[in-house]
């Protein structure tokens, strides 16, 4: 039980250290305090933002998989991220002077509506093949995305939309990422209520049988997932596959007793994003590849492998 944590924590600290010391500007060259300035204003915020986003998305993915009772669901395969982007766009159009936090609230509300719609559709479709579920989510996301693109195109906001949908941490500076701490707070709430989400993952009948207020816990889960997704879309942009890959690997090794596994999910999510970001920064240095793109490539490969190897557990 302690083992994964014992391995994960030094690895994550190491990755965080590498992350802080990776970059174009040299930290050692100037000893007039510029190195320190660089760390405090840019490098450390970036590393923290990466870890917060990674942990938040991985935990959100786990919760969504329990809510939808399907292993292939995460915020970017259930319409959640697309709905959050629509909310951001509407906020930008209707109330352009709203601070980012306000826009994030709009994004959280539309993400909530979109994800709730997704779960409603699932309830109404009688035969739920394991692969049908993410397909429905991708279609819903596609429809929402089409609406957002249409509006963004007309109001010349395609560039902002790109920023929301594709994770890029190169723009992270102090005072520009702090909303992500809300995601951490929500992740802690998820941990405190982890047993409930495990019970939800056992199905509605078993959940009601042990006296769980099913609808209330689903609502709590939806709220957590929507808010976390919204903070990420509003600050650094969506990172695909993370919420699929990390929970699936952890589940394969440790199972799904979330009280035990959620910390491992969070730490692994943070670690994977850190690693992808470092790769993206080193490959074509001094330029960089956005973490969303790196994660897209690595994540889809890992995910394909998981899909092929654990089809029997997919449901």
């Amino acid at each position: 039980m302690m083992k994964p944590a014992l391995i994960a924590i030094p690895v994550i600290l190491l990755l965080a250290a590498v992350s802080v010391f990776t970059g174009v500007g040299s930290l050692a060259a100037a000893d007039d305090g510029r190195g320190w300035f660089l760390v405090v204003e840019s490098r450390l915020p970036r590393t923290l933002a990466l870890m917060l986003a990674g942990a938040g998305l991985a935990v959100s993915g786990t919760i969504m998989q329990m809510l939808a009772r399907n292993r292939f669901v995460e915020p970017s395969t259930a319409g959640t991220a697309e709905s959050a982007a629509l909310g951001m766009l509407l906020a930008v159009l209707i109330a352009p002077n709203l601070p980012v936090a306000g826009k994030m609230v709009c994004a959280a509300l539309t993400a909530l509506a979109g994800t709730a719609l997704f779960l409603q559709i699932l309830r109404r479709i009688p035969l739920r093949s394991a692969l049908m579920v993410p397909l429905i989510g991708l279609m819903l996301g596609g429809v929402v995305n089409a609406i957002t693109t249409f509006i963004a195109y007309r109001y010349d906001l395609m560039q902002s939309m790109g920023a929301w949908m594709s994770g890029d941490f190169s723009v992270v500076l102090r005072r520009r990422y702090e909303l992500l701490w809300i995601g951490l707070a929500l992740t802690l709430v998820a941990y405190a209520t982890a047993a409930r989400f495990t019970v939800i993952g056992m199905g509605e009948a078993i959940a009601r049988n042990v006296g769980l207020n099913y609808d209330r816990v689903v609502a709590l889960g939806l709220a957590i997932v929507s808010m976390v997704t919204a903070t990420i879309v509003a600050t650094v942009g969506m990172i695909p596959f993370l919420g699929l890959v990390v929970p699936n690997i952890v589940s394969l090794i440790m199972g799904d007793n979330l009280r035990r596994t959620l910390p491992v999910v969070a730490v692994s999510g943070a670690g994977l994003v850190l690693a992808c970001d470092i790769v993206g920064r080193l490959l074509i240095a001094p330029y960089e590849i956005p973490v969303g793109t790196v994660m897209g490539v690595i994540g889809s490969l890992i995910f394909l492998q998981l899909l092929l190897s654990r089809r029997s557990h997919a449901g």
Partner: protein
Amino acid sequence: MIEIHEVTKSYGGNAVVDRVSLTLPAGGLTSIIGPNGAGKSTLLSIVSRLMPMDTGKVLVDGLDVSRTAGDVLARRLSIMRQDNHITARLSVRDLVAFGRYPYSKGRLTAADAEHIERSIAYLGLEPYQNRFLDELSGGQRQRAFIAMVLCQDTDYMLFDEPLNNLDIKHAVETMKLLRRLADDFDKTVVVVLHDINFASAYSDRIVAMQAGRLAFEGSPEDMIVPSRLQAIFDVDCRVHAVGETRLVNYFE
């Protein structure tokens, strides 16, 4: 005591359960039998508040199931359904431990741990207790779910077709186990069964349903007679007494 008063449940104008009134006294094993679509499983789901009823009332030891808080009822009554397909990948031990959820809300006490040990031992699951459910055979998994219900330790235990998909050995073991829950632990066991001979051999009471209505109820001696079975299932049959058990032969 479970009191069912005038319970009705319809889908699109079609009454699946139609004004059923029934009283099940505490203790013993009651089987619910009847042809497909008679409303057996629906009635069980309504009694265990997994499904709302349209009209009527169900009281469990005087508690109205549609009004009682979920966790209060979960300490009185438990149900095991046939389709236990779960997404969460849990070990046998974790699954059984969740039977304590109504008491512990996920934070297990020493008393909970004792219940878990006992349930696992009672079902002979020690060798597999750290295996994941998806690594077990159908019969082992079924036993794990029964251990979870046993661990929930409620006075009333409901089982919806627990013998489905089990081979003869495991079906007999499961029925003997349910019988022991009634005999050794003073539980009130209610089982939906398809096989009349299982119902005949292991029940204290048999309740027969037909087209959503309560058709007959009584002891196996009263119920396992050709005329009644003919009326319930619409098949000709003979009943043979073998020792103390009455066996139904519907093959001729």
